[in-house]
């Protein structure tokens, strides 16, 4: 048996981290909590309101609509990006000089600042001068993302897929390259079809990285702000107003600090709970 020595002074060693976390996370968060239960008319005068803002947000049609848009958007991009990313990773070369070329090309979209991505796609998709917009119209489709909700959604999703599929590809590729050759050789000897190889070797071995990919893409897409804000500004109308855009409108457009704070907290809890559900579902088999 090892006797553990107890030395409470060790807490001083973690103090710098505690202070740092307090300043960049806890204190701002508590400020939001503080706002969410009070009403203000300016001049730094606050009245306690209890859970009134929470009730208001939870019953608001506007919040329901943005939440639904947000869930739809996240669902669609997860359904596209995860399978597409895995498919591209499977098609990438396993060795040779092309590996690094592919990896660099794949990483490029990830290196572009988010507002630049929005601006790029805005110009790219403009129906009169943009390459993409002109092309689609040239093919006989009536396409104008600044006016048609469907076109706006199509463009936003296309932009996100272009921007973020690479992340899934890189993670999946890393998972694939960690599979020893012996697995493929054993499968060949066992007479496995290429579908079986994917289903029973590649997919299980990629599971951990795919869990990370799904979580990251879920959280990031659920918080998406910059790119659609630059691309569509939430329009036409409110059709691409996702939760974060709506939140900024309430907080900075209308200066309704109380409702905005309550909405932030609800927003935060939704992400937390959904992430937890995703993680538990995907890791469920791991412990057996």
């Amino acid at each position: 048996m090892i006797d553990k020595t107890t030395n409470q002074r060790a807490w001083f060693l973690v103090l710098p981290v505690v202070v740092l976390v307090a300043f960049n996370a806890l204190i701002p968060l508590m400020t939001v909590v503080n706002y969410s239960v009070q009403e203000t008319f300016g001049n730094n005068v606050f009245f306690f309101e209890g859970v009134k803002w929470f009730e208001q947000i939870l019953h608001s049609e506007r919040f329901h609509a943005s939440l639904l848009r947000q869930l739809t958007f996240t669902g669609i991009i997860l359904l596209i990006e995860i399978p597409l990313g895995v498919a591209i990773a499977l098609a990438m070369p396993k060795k040779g000089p092309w590996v690094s070329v592919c990896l660099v090309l794949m990483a490029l979209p990830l290196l572009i600042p988010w507002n630049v991505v929005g601006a790029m796609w805005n110009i790219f998709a403009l129906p009169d001068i943009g390459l993409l917009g002109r092309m689609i119209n040239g093919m006989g489709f009536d396409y104008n993302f600044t006016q048609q909700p469907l076109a706006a959604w199509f463009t936003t999703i296309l932009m996100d897929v272009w921007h973020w599929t690479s992340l899934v590809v890189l993670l999946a590729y890393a998972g694939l390259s960690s599979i020893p050759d012996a697995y493929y050789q054993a499968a060949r000897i066992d007479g496995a079809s290429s579908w079986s190889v994917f289903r029973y070797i590649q997919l299980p071995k990629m599971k951990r990285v795919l869990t990370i990919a799904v979580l990251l893409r879920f959280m990031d897409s659920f918080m998406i702000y910059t790119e659609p804000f630059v691309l569509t500004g939430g329009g036409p109308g409110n059709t691409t107003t996702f939760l974060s855009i709506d939140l900024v409108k309430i907080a900075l457009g209308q200066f309704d600090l109380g409702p905005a704070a309550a909405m932030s907290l609800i927003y935060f809890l939704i992400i937390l709970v959904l992430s937890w559900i995703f993680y538990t579902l995907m890791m469920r088999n791991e412990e057996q």
Partner: protein
Amino acid sequence: MAKITLDRVRHSYTENPESADDWALKQLDVVWSDGGAYALLGPSGCGKTTLLNVISGLLQPSEGRVLFDDRDVTGVPSDRRDIAQVFQFPVVYDTMSVYDNLAFPLRNRRVPEDQVKTRVHEIASMLELEGVLGNRASGLTADGKQKISLGRGLVRSDVNVIMFDEPLTVIDPHLKWLLRSKLKELHQEVRATMIYVTHDQTEALTFADKVVVMHDGQVVQIGTPVELFEKPKHTFVGHFIGSPGMNLLPCEIVDGFPSFLGHRLETAEAVKVPAGAERMEIGVRPEFVSFADEGLPVDIIKVDDIGRHRIVEVHHKSQAIKLVTPEDTPIPEDKGHLVFERDKTNVYADGWILS
């Protein structure tokens, strides 16, 4: 079940091999008889795994043919060669149960489910896996997983050969013994040809009826453990098998008998130096050297007591010789004389034995 013939097989991993070093397998003409237990022994990088992959069809040899009985299978892919291979690291399908793992090769070949069931249970009882058939394969220990890899090979009743590529590397030492005797037992039970690759001589000598020693892309000797010990065909075999390895002493041939630094040694029969031989050596195992009242004069340098016997290092004119003596034989102090057992003293020309 089949006899396996390697007919002038050569393999190189480079596109256009030029020098001899470019060949991973220099030239192999080997026949593995049906039902034999073979060990393929050699140091790392000597071409063991390459040879194994040529037999299993994972690798196409650059030249030569592979025959199963009289059928040329050189161009036949692995899944249609009816072979099984167990790799260094256990390969199991993580998401499947132990049962499904064992059934996988059969199901891929569309064997009816009731036959799959009887066969899987048969193999599971042979490998003592019956208790865990319903468990997920990923939860098993390394030796359990290695048993599954082995079971996937055994489950098909038509396997021509089962190959093991250093299968005990990741197994705990106390389980190695168990698994090794299990393999030996299985061989007697199923009577399939087995080829066991290893660089560990103990493993090779305990498992196999015949040991194939490889060195530098070539097979240097095929023989029973006793043959390898008493009559190594190549100085490499003498050096690689046995601990400590064979003594190799430079010599010249005078009147048909070797002379080591002016000291004439006896061999079973007179030797003839082949034309063009450059390097002549005497090879004698430490076990066949002993002290005597007269013979080769030596200085005693070091005595290592390793339990039931002792390893003595002596020098004759700065040429080191080792001998193994039982622990109760007296060892002279400082200086002594050596004799070599006449029948067990071999002469080598450029590394190969002269008979």
